[in-house]
């Protein structure tokens, strides 16, 4: 009673998480381990005795969160944000360190976990609520509020497999939004649904935060983070790079991106997902490695991906961002709707050309995702590529000024001189 409320609601001390890497598959066949052990006993023993190829997804993370604080956790893909939330949610365990939490924890790492297509909306509300840690009585009490927020009242007794994907997401988020914990952990779930619903979700999150509950929020949406959070933690390579005000954290994040230009990345095939991105590369034809790119240079983006089995309803989405603001988003199905209807198994290579003479000098990041339109991403890599455009070709008088702005369209000016005062075109 005395000091309890003065203590931070979350304390994270020396938290580290180690993952093993270097396995093609995340699971092993028993016979494989068995034959390895029998045929190469020495090698197997040595492999088991030696530390495997490991990497630290998180390394020595320390922070405290005060009661009622809304903390944003930001950082690039692979910085350890999601791992941190998973450990805080007790989904996976830390390798080292300790966390103390002084409140009931509710975590929202995915919208609609446990939704079953055969069950009705009503049934799914109960099951999903229970899975998220709500009691039956709590769900009963909030039932009307949940359906009102979701806007699917009419279809409450229809199996959710008959729902449109948007309805599905709205219902799922509505259940999750009515979780009532003292500590709420939220991971990127706002990246679903249409813009209007996203706005509604963001409003709900703000409401939760203003009720004095503690929220830990992971997102790539800097706008949302800035709006909701007071304090931020910037993670990079599993370590805390900065903690302090959210404005500073975002500044550091954005400028951190700019120091690390990345024109090509490769990824491993994900054994579980139906589609995996293999390689993404941005290049300017004719330019050598390390050469600066001009705003008038042609720039192409190549995406190589692997489809495990014939799939329907999937698009490849590319977004170009600058300083955390998405400039545009383009889908491969825009030009070829057949790809949405059926994408056969195999390896694909897709190429797009970015518009020339449109983007101003600056640092741009590319987001790649494979997803289901209107539902969400199957696999996504925010900020996977970073490139810089310079204004090289224009003469020095123009070059020395930074005009600012995102775009640099070739705007035509027509200027005439007239001796008359007033309107000359009457």
């Amino acid at each position, binding site marked *: *009673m005395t000091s*309890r409320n003065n*203590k*931070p609601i979350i*304390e994270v001390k020396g938290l580290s998480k180690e*993952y093993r890497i270097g396995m093609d598959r*995340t*699971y*092993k*066949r*028993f*016979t494989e*381990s068995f034959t390895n052990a029998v045929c190469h006993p020495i090698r197997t023993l040595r492999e088991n005795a030696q530390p495997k190829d490991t990497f630290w997804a998180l390394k020595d993370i320390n922070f*405290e969160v*005060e009661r009622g604080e809304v903390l944003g956790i930001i950082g690039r893909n692979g910085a350890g944000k999601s791992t941190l939330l*998973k*450990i*805080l*949610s*007790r*989904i*996976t*365990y*830390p*390798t*080292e*360190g*300790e*966390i*103390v*939490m*002084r*409140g*009931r*924890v509710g*975590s929202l*790492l*995915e919208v609609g*976990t*446990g939704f*079953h297509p*055969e*069950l009705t909306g009503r*049934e799914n509300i*109960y*099951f999903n609520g*229970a*899975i*998220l*840690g709500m*009691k*039956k009585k709590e769900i009963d009490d909030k039932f009307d509020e949940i359906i009102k927020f979701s806007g699917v009242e009419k279809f409450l007794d229809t*199996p959710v497999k008959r729902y449109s994907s948007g309805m599905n997401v709205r219902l799922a988020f509505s259940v999750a939004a009515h979780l009532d914990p*003292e500590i709420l952990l939220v991971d990127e779930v706002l990246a679903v649904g249409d813009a209007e619903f996203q706005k509604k979700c963001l409003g709900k999150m703000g409401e939760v935060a203003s009720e004095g509950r503690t929220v830990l929020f992971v997102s790539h949406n800097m706008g949302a983070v800035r709006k909701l959070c*007071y*304090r931020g933690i910037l993670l990079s390579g599993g370590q805390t790079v900065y*903690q*302090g*005000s959210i404005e500073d954290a975002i500044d550091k994040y954005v400028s951190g991106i700019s120091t690390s230009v990345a024109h090509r990345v490769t990824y491993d095939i994900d054994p*579980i997902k139906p589609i995996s991105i293999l390689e993404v590369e941005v290049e300017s034809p004719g330019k050598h490695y390390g050469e600066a790119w001009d705003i008038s240079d042609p720039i192409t983006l190549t995406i190589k991906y692997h489809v495990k089995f014939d799939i329907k309803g999937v698009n490849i989405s590319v977004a170009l961002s600058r300083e955390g603001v998405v400039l545009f988003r383009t889908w491969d199905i825009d030009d070829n709707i057949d790809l949405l209807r059926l994408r056969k198994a195999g390896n694909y290579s897709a190429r797009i050309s970015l518009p020339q003479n449109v983007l101003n000098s600056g640092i741009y990041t590319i987001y790649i995702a494979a997803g289901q339109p209107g539902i969400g991403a199957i696999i996504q890599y925010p900020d996977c590529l970073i490139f810089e455009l310079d204004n090289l070709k224009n003469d020095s008088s123009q070059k020395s000024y930074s005009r600012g702005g995102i775009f640099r369209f070739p705007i035509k000016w027509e200027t005439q001189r007239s001796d008359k005062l007033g309107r000359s075109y009457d």
Partner: protein
Amino acid sequence: MVQESPRIDEIAFQRADLKTVNPTMTEPTSDFELIIRPKYGLLDLNWRELKEYHELLFFLALREIKIRYKQTVMGASWAVLQPLFTMVVFTLIFGGLAQMPSEGIPYALFSYSGLLLWIYFQNALTNAGNSLVGNAPLLSKVYMPRIFIPTAPCLAGLADYGIAMTILAAMMVYYQFVPTAAVLLLPAIVFLTLLLAAGVGYWLSSISVKYRDVQFALPFFIQLLMFVSPVIYPTDILSGNLQWLLSLNPLTGLINAHRAVLLGHVPVDYIGLGMSAVITIVIFASGVLYLRRTEKYFADLV
């Protein structure tokens, strides 16, 4: 807005305080403290947490029941048809052609009373064994006591068992069999079968998170298991040594007792039942421990 500077004196105080924490979920505001640490002892079963989440177990079992026969024409009658048709085929082949002895009762009744419990066990074990891999999103996206995932199908199977029981009741009326007072043991026998299916299910589902071979081996294993259980033949057709060997299978005692308490045609073999109970409890307890021991890696492996 302002970053808190570390307060070293307070941290030292809190560290000393941690030993007296109370990991309960029930009093959220006052005394609640949850500690997450890397290690987790062998016997740390955290009963409180299971109690806290017990509603979820029933929700999961209910979900299992509700979805089982969705989009089927015959719905829950499948719960009856499966043992019924198996019984008919077995009666024709083993009772008719092979002239299998059946403890002096009609073969149809003999095989159905065995199949009733066997099919419950078979379905419960199949669903439990595949449950963790089949519910991968639950493992990687939410926190809950993982043990509920394989337990739920074992509970849900009881509904099918109850439905299929009506056929046995009808058959008993037809053949004029009246259960004796020993039928009061029936709930205990069914409960032990549930523990057995759950116990084996805990082992197999935990292993299958890492080694998917289990998914292929399981149907085969179950098929073999039926032939070493007294479902289609009575135990006494075997020689003494083989009978002894068969009694190591906990299902032997359970199926024999299940048949005896319902039909009352032979006295209940309490020694056999007791032995099955002991083996069942050992399997169940070891399954619980194994699952609780390995569950912390599930999210990383599945």
